[in-house]
């Protein structure tokens, strides 16, 4: 029926069971009765009376009495049922209408509640009327019953709450309260409201727990002391009966211990949970309960015999598990292992501790004390419960059996452990499985069966290693070491020992112990000579760095290489190592550029130290020991224009990062270490490795050239070999062999000719050993001297540029050969010395000697060099040297530069002539000039060169020029050409006293046509009557050309025409004003025929107009030779040679033919030159050599006044 409840609780369908009992007054509940199950909810008065008389006589009184009793007990739940019987009625038809009795009763008793009286008619008949009345009755009955039930339940709950609120009062008892609330739970259970029933128990549970906690906090309740009595019985949970009346009675008698209370409470909860189909919650709660019980007992300081709790927990675990198994099928259990496995593991744990406690685990078996303890424990279990006696596998039997003998214990413990491990594994709790496995291994070790323990330990260790748990690794390893020791696995044991000895998580003593184990094995006499134990090195020692000497790790064949490495010993004590060896792999790479001696000496790590990444072995696991990403930028440029094509980031160590993770199998296995046999081994014997960093030095004599790669490092302690299988990063050293070589190079940037210059000779001996008496033979060159005065010393370096010694150098010179005696030097050294050489200064322009060694290059080359600007003229000297190690001569070219550049020019003043020589210093040095001379080499007797220079010393600074001037004087007719030689002594200005006399610098040149033939005089005259010229007004320009000499040799050319008595030559004059000061009006040029006679004068008159006011220079007047058109070729050549000597043309860089012609045609303003190229028969112009024309009006200026009509005054100052 539907049950509606107060406080907004959802209506529920309930099943309410009721018993009908005969009314007795003593059954009525007294005040304070708490029994709810036996509570009379509804009182029913049955009567058959149909007779008013009888009613009045007996029934009414009886009813009244009944009502009074009810009232006295304040019960308002009653019902009066009047059963009517037709048969009876028929007998007494004469009396009152049948309804009257009912009405009467209603009137008498049910004054307000008319529904409290029900009529049941003919209950035994099968008629619709009967049915109807039954239905009405039953409905009424249910309703009333439920009403009463609800009311009473509410009242009960209220009472209960009141009772609970009184819990702080002194006399309050938890047991009493427990019984009250359990009553409620029973009711709910009876109503099949298991959820509500469970809530009641949970509330009790929580209340009790809270009290225990409070007790722990010092707030003790009196009643709790009942629970603090010592535990005497530990017979586990009993879950097979719905209600454990035995325990309940104990509770009621307030004699229950804490365990009893908890057991009872949990058994009730378990029953309810199973009703609710929640077996997994049972498992979970069971674990919690067991844990909390243990805690509570501890908290309440309850006296518990040792092992008693373990028994209790073990029994309880198994009981719960069996209970769950009993109500579920296999598949359900298998899929819910996760919930039960905790109990399994707890039971295993407890059994283990019991085993240890009772001496069942030790090898010898239990002693008498252990046996006594066992007996005590078994006594505490009491007798087996009747309900499980028949079960073969009951927890009680199991425990009893397990405790009875060593063998039985082993069997049970192994069963449990295996079951637990299997379960953990099946749900993927590998770590938990390993942990249980470790316990099992410990057990096996106790039982002296290490072979069984080993696999569990290995499994656990692998797991810890893979996840990098240092402490568990150490601990497990320690166990494993013991196990391996028992098993006699020498290699494995030694390896584990070495790992442990290097383990910083162990104490110093433990480490020393394991180290000693290792060493004592190594100290054993070797039974078989070839026997050795190969262990990985990382646990023994770690390679920190490696240092080569020479630092570039390159040695010449036969040289000594020393190698020093820092090895960090992990052992706690000093270890004497018989030998440390490095296996070296040798390879020849003949054709690789890398192997050339030059490359090798230049490259490689500069300091020769190679650092090894600290092996953080073996703890950070595979994931974290991955090397960090080595990222690098990458640029790809197109090969043609170097433009950026692609850019990106590349990972340089992809091969390291992406390689397959090695499965953990090789983590501990010694199999991974393979010894390499190499022919080349570096050894170092008898080393004692102190804890921490040690330096170990190796020395080796380099033999064959090639590359040597260090592969393995191996330390030997007796038969124990510690091997580092790979040395990474790759370490190599190279051995090379080198041919002897000679280098000669100037000390300065460039060698200067004329002064002593230092040249460095470098002899790289290579594999050749220089003996005493070996010498370099220099074949002398005329133009270059090897100066060998004084002491020369040579310095000898080792190949790595360390100075080793110095020696005096013997230099002997004969006229052909200079011999340099080399000091005795071992192979692979460098001899260095300096010599002074002197190249003779040469006048570059004039020498036309044959092209022999030591002579300057042909002038063409000089010309090429000059083109780039004023740079020094160079000379190459080729020096041939015979070396003692070779039959061939070494030819070495030395380039000397001329520090000066010299130019000359001819200056005229009327007929007087001057030669000017300009010396330009191109070098970086300052010089001192002395004794400048100009000599006529033509040998004209009457020619005098009068110097106009200061006779003293002159300084010429870097990049400066000095001018020298001589006046030419002659008495007879001068020669057409003058060959001169300029010579000048020079020495470096910063000079200390030079030991040798330096050759003077000479410069030869030729001056032609230096005799003045014509004077040109120009004059501008203002117009007549005006004092000054004015701008804008025409002035007259008078040009007079005067011949100064009679016919001379130089006049004999095509322009000369001969008439009867006198000669005539054709000249062209031209008036040019480059400054735009003048406007030449009319003809500006013309050809005149000039008589070749002294004082012949030709005047030309022209009109010019000044364009500006001020002092204006006169327009230029130029004279040209006017040549007839034929014989173009010869004149062309003439012109060329002339141009070359002309200073003007040199300035203008007469680079090529075109330039030449443009220079020439510039003055003419005609296309004469181009016409000439075309080969047309046109007259040609030839400028007169500067020496032949003297313009007497050069530099004169004339005053021009501005025109009067000009308002703007323009003054041009030039």
């Amino acid at each position: 029926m539907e049950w509606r409840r107060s406080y907004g609780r959802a209506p529920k369908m309930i099943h309410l069971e009721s018993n009908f009992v005969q009314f007795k007054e003593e059954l009525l509940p007294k005040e304070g009765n708490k029994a709810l199950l036996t509570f009379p909810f509804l009182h029913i008065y049955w009567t058959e009376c149909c007779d008013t008389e009888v009613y009045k006589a007996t029934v009414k009184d009886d009813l009244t009495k009944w009502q009074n009793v009810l009232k006295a007990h304040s019960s308002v739940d009653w019902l009066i049922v009047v059963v009517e019987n037709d048969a009876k009625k028929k007998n007494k038809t004469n009396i009152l209408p049948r309804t009257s009795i009912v009405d009467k009763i209603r009137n008498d008793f049910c004054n307000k509640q008319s529904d409290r009286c029900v009529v049941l008619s003919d209950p035994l008949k099968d008629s619709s009327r009967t049915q109807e009345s039954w239905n009405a009755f039953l409905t009424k009955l249910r309703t009333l019953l439920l009403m009463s039930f609800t009311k009473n339940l509410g009242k009960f709950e209220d009472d209960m709450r009141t009772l609970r609120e009184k819990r702080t009062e002194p006399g309050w008892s938890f047991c009493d309260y427990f019984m009250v609330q359990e009553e409620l739970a029973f009711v709910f259970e009876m109503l099949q409201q298991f959820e509500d029933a469970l809530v009641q128990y949970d509330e009790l549970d929580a209340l009790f727990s809270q009290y225990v906690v409070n007790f722990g906090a010092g707030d003790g309740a009196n009643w709790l002391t009942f629970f603090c009595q010592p535990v005497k019985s530990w017979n586990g949970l009993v879950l097979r009966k719905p209600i454990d009346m035995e325990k309940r009675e104990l509770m009621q008698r307030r004699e229950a211990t804490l365990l009893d209370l908890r057991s009872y409470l949990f058994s009730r909860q378990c029953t309810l949970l199973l009703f609710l189909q929640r077996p997994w919650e049972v498992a979970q709660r069971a674990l919690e309960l067991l844990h909390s019980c243990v805690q509570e007992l501890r908290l309440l300081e309850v006296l518990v015999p040792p092992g008693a709790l373990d028994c209790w927990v073990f029994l309880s675990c198994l009981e719960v598990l069996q209970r769950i198994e009993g109500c579920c099928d296999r598949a359900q259990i298998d899929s819910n292992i996760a919930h039960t496995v905790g109990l399994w593991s707890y039971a295993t744990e407890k059994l283990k501790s019991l085993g240890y406690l009772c001496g069942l685990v030790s090898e010898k078996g239990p002693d008498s004390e252990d046996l006594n303890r066992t007996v005590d424990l078994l006594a505490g279990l009491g007798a087996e419960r009747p309900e499980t006696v028949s079960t073969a596998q009951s927890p009680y039997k199991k425990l009893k059996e397990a405790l009875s003998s060593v063998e039985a214990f082993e069997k049970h413990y192994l069963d449990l452990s295996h079951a637990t491990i299997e379960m953990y594994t099946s749900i993927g709790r590998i770590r938990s499985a390993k942990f249980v496995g470790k316990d099992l291994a410990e057990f096996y070790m106790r039982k002296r069966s290490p072979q069984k323990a080993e696999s569990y330990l290995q499994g656990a260790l692998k797991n810890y290693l893979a996840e990098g748990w240092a402490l568990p690794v150490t601990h497990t390893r320690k166990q494993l070491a013991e196990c391996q020791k028992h098993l006699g696995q020498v290699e494995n044991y030694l390896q584990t020992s070495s790992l442990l000895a290097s383990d910083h998580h162990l104490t110093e003593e433990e480490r020393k112990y394991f180290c000693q184990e290792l060493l004592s094995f190594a100290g054993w006499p070797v039974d078989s000579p070839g026997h050795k134990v190969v262990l990985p090195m990382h646990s023994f020692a770690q390679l920190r760095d490696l240092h080569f000497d020479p630092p570039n790790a390159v040695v010449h064949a036969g040289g000594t290489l020393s190698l020093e490495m820092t090895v960090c010993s992990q052992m706690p004590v000093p270890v004497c190592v018989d030998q440390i060896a490095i296996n070296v792999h040798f390879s020849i790479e003949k054709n690789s550029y890398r192997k050339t001696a030059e490359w090798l000496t230049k490259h490689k790590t500069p300091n020769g130290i190679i650092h090894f990444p600290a092996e953080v072995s073996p703890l950070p696991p595979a994931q974290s020991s991955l090397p960090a990403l080595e990222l690098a930028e990458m640029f790809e440029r197109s090969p043609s224009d170097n433009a950026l094509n692609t850019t990106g980031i590349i990972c340089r160590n992809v091969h390291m990062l992406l390689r397959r993770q090695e499965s953990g199998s090789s983590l501990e296995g010694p199999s991974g270490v393979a010894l390499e046999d190499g022919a080349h081994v570096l050894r170092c014997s008898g080393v004692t490795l102190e804890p921490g960093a040690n330096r170990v030095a190796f020395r080796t004599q380099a033999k064959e050239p090639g590359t040597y790669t260090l592969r393995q490092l191996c330390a030997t302690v007796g038969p124990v070999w510690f091997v580092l299988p790979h040395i990474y990063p790759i370490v190599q050293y190279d051995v090379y062999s080198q041919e002897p070589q000679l280098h000669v190079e100037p000390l300065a940037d460039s060698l200067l000719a004329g002064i002593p210059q230092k040249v460095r000779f470098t002899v790289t001996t290579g594999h050749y050993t220089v003996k005493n008496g070996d010498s370099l033979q220099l074949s002398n060159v005329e133009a270059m001297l090897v100066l060998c005065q004084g002491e020369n010393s040579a310095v000898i370096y080792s190949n790595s540029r360390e100075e080793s010694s110095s020696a005096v150098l013997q230099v002997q010179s004969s006229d052909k050969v200079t011999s340099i005696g080399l000091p005795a030097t071992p192979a692979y050294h460098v001899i260095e010395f300096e010599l002074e050489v002197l190249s003779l200064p040469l006048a570059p322009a004039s020498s036309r000697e044959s092209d022999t060694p030591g002579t300057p290059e042909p002038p063409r080359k000089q010309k090429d060099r000059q083109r780039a600007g004023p740079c020094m003229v160079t000379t190459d000297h080729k020096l041939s040297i015979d070396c003692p190690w070779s039959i061939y001569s070494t030819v070495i070219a030395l380039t000397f530069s001329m520090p000066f550049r010299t130019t000359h020019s001819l200056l005229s003043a009327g007929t007087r002539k001057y030669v000017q020589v300009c010396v330009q210093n191109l070098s970086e040095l300052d010089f001192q000039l002395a004794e400048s001379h100009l000599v006529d080499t033509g040998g004209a007797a009457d020619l005098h060169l009068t110097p106009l220079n200061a006779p003293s010393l002159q300084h010429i600074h870097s990049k400066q020029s000095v001018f020298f001037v001589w006046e030419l004087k002659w008495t007879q007719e001068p020669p057409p050409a003058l060959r001169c030689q300029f010579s000048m002594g020079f020495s470096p200005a910063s000079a200390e006293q030079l030991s040798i006399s330096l050759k003077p610098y000479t410069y030869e040149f030729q001056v032609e046509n230096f005799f003045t033939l014509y004077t040109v005089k120009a004059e501008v005259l203002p117009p007549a009557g005006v004092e000054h010229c004015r701008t804008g007004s025409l002035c007259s320009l008078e040009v007079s050309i005067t011949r100064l000499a009679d016919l001379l040799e130089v006049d004999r050319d095509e322009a000369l025409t001969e008439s009867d008595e006198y000669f005539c030559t054709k000249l062209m004059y031209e008036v040019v004003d480059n400054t735009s000061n003048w406007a030449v009006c009319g003809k500006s040029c013309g050809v005149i025929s000039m008589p070749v006679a002294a004082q012949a004068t030709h005047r030309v008159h022209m009109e010019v107009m000044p364009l500006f006011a001020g002092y204006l220079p006169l327009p230029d007047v130029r004279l040209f030779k006017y040549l007839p058109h034929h014989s173009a070729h010869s004149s062309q050549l003439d012109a060329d040679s002339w141009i070359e000597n002309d200073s003007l043309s040199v300035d203008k860089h007469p680079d090529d033919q075109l330039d030449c012609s443009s220079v020439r045609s510039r003055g003419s303003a005609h296309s004469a030159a181009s016409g000439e190229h075309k080969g047309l028969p046109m007259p040609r112009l030839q400028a007169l050599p500067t020496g032949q024309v003297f313009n007497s009006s050069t530099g004169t200026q004339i005053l021009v006044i501005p025109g009067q009509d000009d308002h703007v005054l323009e003054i041009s100052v030039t």
Partner: protein
Amino acid sequence: MAVCIAVIAKENYPLYIRSTPMENELKFHYMVHTSLDVVDEKISAMGKALVDQRELYLGLLYPTEDYKVYGFVTNSKVKLVMVVDSSNTALRDNEIRSMFRKLHNSYTDVMCNPFYNPGDRIQSRAFDNMVTSMMIQVC
């Protein structure tokens, strides 16, 4: 308060682990390591369902007789594990949660340190102090 606090990397190796009674260090290491089983289980169970809810607290992982192990997982799957003495009944879920939040914040600070290499052991003094305070502080 907490007797052992551990920070465990995604790959299950310890980034930081400290426990107060030093003599039991090994036991706590084993305990924390074993509790990772449950963490893994919870994470994979949570995987689909709770991704959006971002519930990082994993709750009680692993009760034992003497200790309770609580778990917490960050978004980057770094696990924080805290072992609490069972007898310390004053610690409720809420306190544990707030302790984890504090721990998480401190861990985040460590990660924000530009000199800290993710995946390295945590050696930050600030973090250490925070852990110490959580171990001694009495709620």
